[in-house]
C-alpha cells in the first residue's frame, strides 16, 4: 500500500532534481532543495512503516524540524549581499 506513495515521491524527487540541475536562476535551485526536503520527509515516513519499525520516525521529525534552516541561511545570505551593495552605492538602492 505504501509503495504507490513511495514511487510517486521518488518520481517527484527526480523531477525536482531535474529542475535543480537545469536552473535557470539560483532561486529555482533553492526551491528544488526545499521541495526535495519535504519529499524526503514523506519518503522516510512511508519507508519506516514498510520496514515495520515505526520507532524510526525520530529521523523524520529531525528533517521536518530543521530542514528549513538552510532556506533562512539563504535569505540571510542575500540580505547581507543587498546591504553591502547598498552601502557601496546607496543611490542605486532607491
Amino acid at each position, binding site marked *: 500500500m505504501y*509503495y504507490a506513495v*513511495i514511487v510517486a515521491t*521518488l518520481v517527484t*524527487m*527526480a523531477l525536482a*532534481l531535474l529542475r*535543480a*540541475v537545469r*536552473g535557470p536562476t*539560483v532561486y529555482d*535551485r*533553492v526551491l*528544488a*532543495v526545499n521541495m*526535495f*526536503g519535504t519529499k*524526503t520527509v514523506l*519518503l*522516510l515516513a512511508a*519507508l519506516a512503516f*514498510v520496514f515495520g*519499525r515505526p*520507532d*524510526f520516525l*525520530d*529521523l523524520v*521529525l*529531525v*528533517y521536518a*524540524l*530543521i*530542514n528549513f*534552516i*538552510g532556506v*533562512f*541561511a*539563504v*535569505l*540571510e*545570505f542575500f*540580505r*547581507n*549581499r543587498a*546591504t553591502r551593495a547598498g552601502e557601496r552605492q546607496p543611490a542605486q538602492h532607491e
Partner: protein
Amino acid sequence: MSTITLLFSIFLLTLLMITTMAIVRTRNLFVAVMLMGIASLLIAASFFLLDAADVALTEAAVGAGISTVLFLGALALTSERERSPSSLPLLSLGIVAIVALIVIYATFDQPPLGSPSAPVQAHLTPWYIESTRELIDIPNVVTAVLASFRGYDTLGEVIVVFTAGVGVLFLLGTGASASAAGAPLSEDNAGLRHYLIPRILGRLLIPFILLLGFYVQFHGEYSPGGGFQAGAIVAASIILYSLLEGEQRALLVIPQGVLLAMMVGGVLLYGAVGVAGLVLGGNFLDYSVLDSDPVKGQQWGILLIEIGIGITVAGVLISIFHAFASRGAA
C-alpha cells in the same frame, strides 16, 4: 532487502550520481552548495534504506542544519563564482576514469550485497549483538558499541572534533572579539529581524528543536540517537536563533566563555568517567565498576559519556558558526 527496496535504493543512488556530477560541473559555487543539500538528503535516505537509522539521523542533523549554513557563510566572505577553468581537464578525467574502472573491476570480488557469509557478518556482528544483550542490556546496539565496546575510539573522535573546533577558533578568532564587551546592540541591522514571518515562526520552533535535541540525547539507548546527533540538533537550534535575532543576541544568550567551557567540559567529562573506572579498580573506560551491578554500571557510564559527547559537539559546532559569522560582520 527485498528486490523492491533494492530498486528504490538503486534509484536514489542514481539520482545521487547525477547530483554529484552536476555539483562538480557547475562553476557557480552557490549552486554547488545548494546541490550539496540535495546530495545530503539523498545520502540520508540511502543510509535509511541500508538499515543504518543512527547514521541517517546524524547525516540529517548535520547536513540539513549545519553544513549548508557553514558553506554559505564561507561563500559570503569569498566569492560565488569559480574564476579559473579546470586545470588539465582531459588528463585528470583520464586518470579519474582509469581509477574508477580499476575500483569497479575490484568490486567483482565483493561478496554479494547483504550476503550472510560476508566477513563483517561472520564473527563480529553476532558477538556484538549477543554481548550487548548480556553485558549492557540496552536495545540500541549501535550506542552500546559506540560508547562502551569502542569507547577508546569514540574518545579519540571527540578529541578530533574538539581539536578542529580549537583550530577554527585560532584561525578566525572567537566571535566575542567582534562584539567587544559593552558595545551597544545594533538593533537595525541584525539578522532577519525585519522579516516578520520567518522570525515569528522560527522563534516558535526553536523550543521544539531544543526539546527534540534533548529527546535524541537521552533516548539514544532505546531508539536511533545519541550525543553526536543531539549535539548537532542543539547547535542547529542556536544557529537558527542567531540567524533570526543576529549574532550579538545569540552571544548574549550563550556567551563565548560558556561555549569554550562546553567544548572543554564535554571532553573532560568523558575522560573523567574513564578515570573513575581506574579509581574504582577497573580499567580505563570500563564502566562495570561504576555501580554494584555491572550492567547498571555500564548503563550509567554510557549515559554520562553520551552527555559529554553531546556537550562537546554542540559547543564546537556553535563556536565554529560564530567564528564564521563574526568574520562576516567585522
